[in-house]
């Protein structure tokens, strides 16, 4: 039996046992996202512009993650709106950063895995990098937006400015851990590579792969940090409008 299928089945069983109906919806969202990501790769390889693909599919992935994670419209609605606003802001920052850093494609450390491949593939690697960075942050944006919207929905009328702020700090604090460790896991083999070849510090901070990966972490962190006040703002504005009517 295929190992990935077996792992997925086991996850489905666990999510059903522990999460019930909600677990099933979560699993469904993951499956949808997995298929969407494969579709994005196929379309990129067939020559569609990666940046446009990332924006279009980013919208769909955000929608499926947010609306399948919570059945509460009062939570999902504002979370989705603020996630979209953040995504729009982010596209500019990502394009600027990735153009200045020139970290697209492969580094000298990749040469072994590139053996036998032609890298002149006629698809722009800088564009793929921008797309990858944007899509990689979406999970974190969705998570933070849902957490803030759900938290504000729970405390509703007793919400004080200080209370909302406190909650926002906690959400950012924990999201930072998730992102930091998440990317650190991926870093570990590269770090061992650097350490075993005794790369000097000056070389590491200019290394194509290291700088590229670290910039992606930092952009995700920026995205989460901005998502929290943005969602707070969206929820408060929505409430104010409701009250006027």
């Amino acid at each position, binding site marked *: 039996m295929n190992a*990935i299928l077996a792992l997925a089945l*086991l*996850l489905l069983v*666990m999510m059903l046992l522990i999460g019930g109906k909600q*677990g099933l919806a979560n699993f469904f969202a993951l499956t949808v996202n997995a298929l969407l990501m494969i579709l994005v*790769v196929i379309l990129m390889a067939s020559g569609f512009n990666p940046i446009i693909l990332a924006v279009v599919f980013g919208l769909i992935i955000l929608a499926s993650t947010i609306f399948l994670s919570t059945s509460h419209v009062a939570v999902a609605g504002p979370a989705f709106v603020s996630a979209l606003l953040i995504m729009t802001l982010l596209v500019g920052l990502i394009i600027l950063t990735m153009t200045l850093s020139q970290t697209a494609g492969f580094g000298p450390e990749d040469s072994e895995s590139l053996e036998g491949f032609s890298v002149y*593939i006629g698809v722009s690697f800088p564009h793929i990098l921008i797309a990858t960075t944007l899509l*990689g942050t979406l999970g974190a944006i969705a998570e933070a937006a849902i957490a803030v919207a759900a938290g504000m929905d729970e405390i509703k009328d007793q919400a004080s400015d200080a209370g909302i702020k406190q909650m926002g700090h906690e959400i950012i604090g924990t999201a930072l851990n998730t992102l930091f*460790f998440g990317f650190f*896991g991926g870093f570990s083999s590269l770090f061992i590579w650097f350490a075993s070849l005794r790369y000097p510090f000056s070389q590491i901070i200019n290394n194509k792969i290291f700088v590229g990966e670290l910039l992606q972490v930092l952009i995700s962190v920026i995205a989460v940090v901005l998502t929290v006040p943005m969602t707070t703002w969206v929820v408060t504005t929505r409430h104010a409008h409701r009250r006027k009517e």
Partner: protein
Amino acid sequence: MKYFGKWLIPFVAAIAVFIGMQFDSSLYAKPVGRVESVQVIKTTSHDDEDQNHDRLTKQQVKVRLLNTAKRGQSVTIHNTYSFSGGLDNQLRPGEQIFLDVDKGVYTLNNIKRDAILAALLVLTFGLIFLVMGRRAWLTSISILLNTVIFFIAVTWEIGSKQWQAWWLFVGLAVVFTILTAVFIVGFKPIAVTISLGSLLATGLAVALGYGVLTLTNYNGVHLEEVKYATQMPQLLFFAQIVIGSLGAVLDEASDISVAIFQLHDSAKERFQAGMAIGRNVMGPLISVLFMIFIADTFVESVLWIRNNNSIAQTVIWVMGLGFAQSLISAFGIVLAVPMTSGLAAFMAKIKKVAA
């Protein structure tokens, strides 16, 4: 206006750092130069065996040296870049580069990337401090400490045997967990619940993952594709999962514990409250890691497909590792829900007996 103005501070600081770092070339021993002007010499089209059309451009680049004894002099180098830009870069005026020199002839070595890296670090931490205020210190110190420990551990691991490396990563995971838990809640009994719950969930997840992979004989998971793993790809595969998912599991465990420790009710009620919170947070948390792991495989996947590999082959060989890693990480995130809730409930019981 004042409210809006404060958001500009981190951006202005980042730009200032970016500009300042254009003048740090004297810190490098390697020759650094600034691109003064570029001129396209010729453009040729390039077709590979799989009918991929690309364009190669040769540019003549005038570079002004910024350090070494030749500082201030101008040299001319040649640089060829492709439209796809997988292994090469188009040089643009104003950009700074490292140069190799051999018998007075200069060639491009690498792009200088320290300025953009520093600028983004300043922007990130500037925004964290702006939004979180004083709490940002705790988070930043916790991240910094973990980074330092990670570096020491990785440097130490060099040359050790495989079983030693295993224990090193296990030790690293334990230290990370306890340190982060203490930074989140302080030296309190609740920190024990958080770290124990996280470690048990992650340990069980890896054990289950290892079991499933062994039973299916790693069918469809190609460990030889683990990146930058010259030795011990299996170890790195699991180490990446453990460290990668630990943050998410810790977050979840602390969310659950903090919320239910405030309830002074019976163990049963605590357990049920914990499960309810966990159910809501586990889905989004899994998708955070999922997107990180899968997006990481995009560049290589596109390369594979354009090199005439079938989609099925690409999905299995390149994306397969990312899928396997995010699935095993998801085990940990799901298992942490009952484990942390159970531990918190158990602690409530002990307290009652003691009282």
